[in-house]
């Protein structure tokens, strides 16, 4: 039997439930943004967790991944994995630079002596 015929077998009710869940979760996200969970990192993590839950609902139900051939889910997930690689390795670099160079990306302290030779003073730190 062809895949096309697959959807005929179930009713649209799950779609409606999913919509309700999504709207509900949106409400929670907005609400959570007004609550202080201690640090902004925690807030971001919570918001991202909810967003991921919502995204999974959309992917599994609306985009039919739960009934589809597994290959399609693999393709979808692999795009996320490779994004994770990009993010992860960039974070390794940005996160460990300062230990090596005390004057990392974030703080540019002027050198102990005056600004280097012939430099219009404070060329770089100006932006900070």
């Amino acid at each position: 039997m062809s895949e096309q015929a697959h959807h005929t077998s179930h009713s649209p009710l799950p779609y409606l439930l999913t919509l309700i869940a999504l709207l509900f979760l949106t409400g929670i996200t907005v609400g959570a943004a007004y609550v202080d969970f201690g640090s902004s990192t925690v807030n971001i993590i919570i918001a991202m967790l909810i967003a991921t839950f919502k995204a999974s609902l959309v992917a599994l139900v609306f985009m039919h991944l739960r009934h589809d051939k597994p290959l399609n889910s693999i393709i979808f997930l692999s795009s996320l994995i490779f994004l994770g690689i990009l993010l992860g390795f960039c974070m390794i670099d940005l996160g460990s630079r300062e230990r090596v160079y005390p004057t990392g990306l974030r703080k540019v302290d002027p050198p102990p002596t005056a600004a280097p030779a012939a430099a219009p003073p404070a060329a770089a730190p100006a932006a900070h």
Partner: protein
Amino acid sequence: MDSIRHWMLGPQGSAYANNVDDLYMFLVWLSVFFFVLIVFLTVYFAWKYRRRKEGVLTPNISHNLALELLWSIIPLIIVMGIFFWGFNDYVRASVAPNDAIEIHVTGKKWLWAFEYPDGTRTIGNLHVPVNRPVKLILTSEDVLHDFYIPSMRQKTDVIPGRFVDLTFTPTVPGKHQVFCAEYCGKSHSDMMANLFVDSPEVYEKWLVEGDPELQQMPPVEVGKLVYENKGCNSCHSIDGSKNTGPSFKGLYGRMEKFADGTTQMVDDNYIVESINNPQAKIVAGYEPVMPTFQGLLRTPEMRGIIAYIKELK
């Protein structure tokens, strides 16, 4: 063996350079080994089993696990060894000892400026004492550059808005070449500098007095050195051709027209002003890009460059 090594890698300037060369030469011989192996096997098989008759059937040799493991595992072990060797040297070379001399380096299109702990500044020439670790603290004023001392086997990108460091312990006195190794535009290939490794006494003396030869030289010669070493040559030609800045040829004594329409005769004072405060008068047809050299030319050097420009008729 040593002559091959010297021919391939050029002069060494530090003990660390020797370490790097050890690994490099190990890799060369490793590569020679594998290359010869590949060539031998390829040529041998290709020739031994060359086609003698059309349409023959060949044996079905589809795979051999032992062999395949052999040529996976041996390279794996070798490359892991190479990784640790290379990484170990790298880490050791990037930790600066506490007694290192700290010299600030600024790269900009297209010259290198140095500032020593006592406030001395130079352009294009870096002096360091022999056998003392040196820690350069580098930054850039415009785009990426890269401070590269081949004889020390060291280089680092120089990044605007950030300070990076580069450590080496020179052991070989004399002049060493410095290149800019990160592409930075038109005069990228002229953005060089000299590294002078002096004995400690000469270094101390140099900090106070400047180059001793300068004192005995005729001013025109001094001027020529200034022209070549302080970076003037990256923007000013001496043959009359137009570059980033006006040519020095025929400059002295001419009536110069400025962007604001005024004019002035080029004399000693005007040259001094152009060098110390270049933005004061912009020559018509040029961009106001010349950096100030205020405090960078000692009096004999200033006298020299004026004499040199005078000479260039």
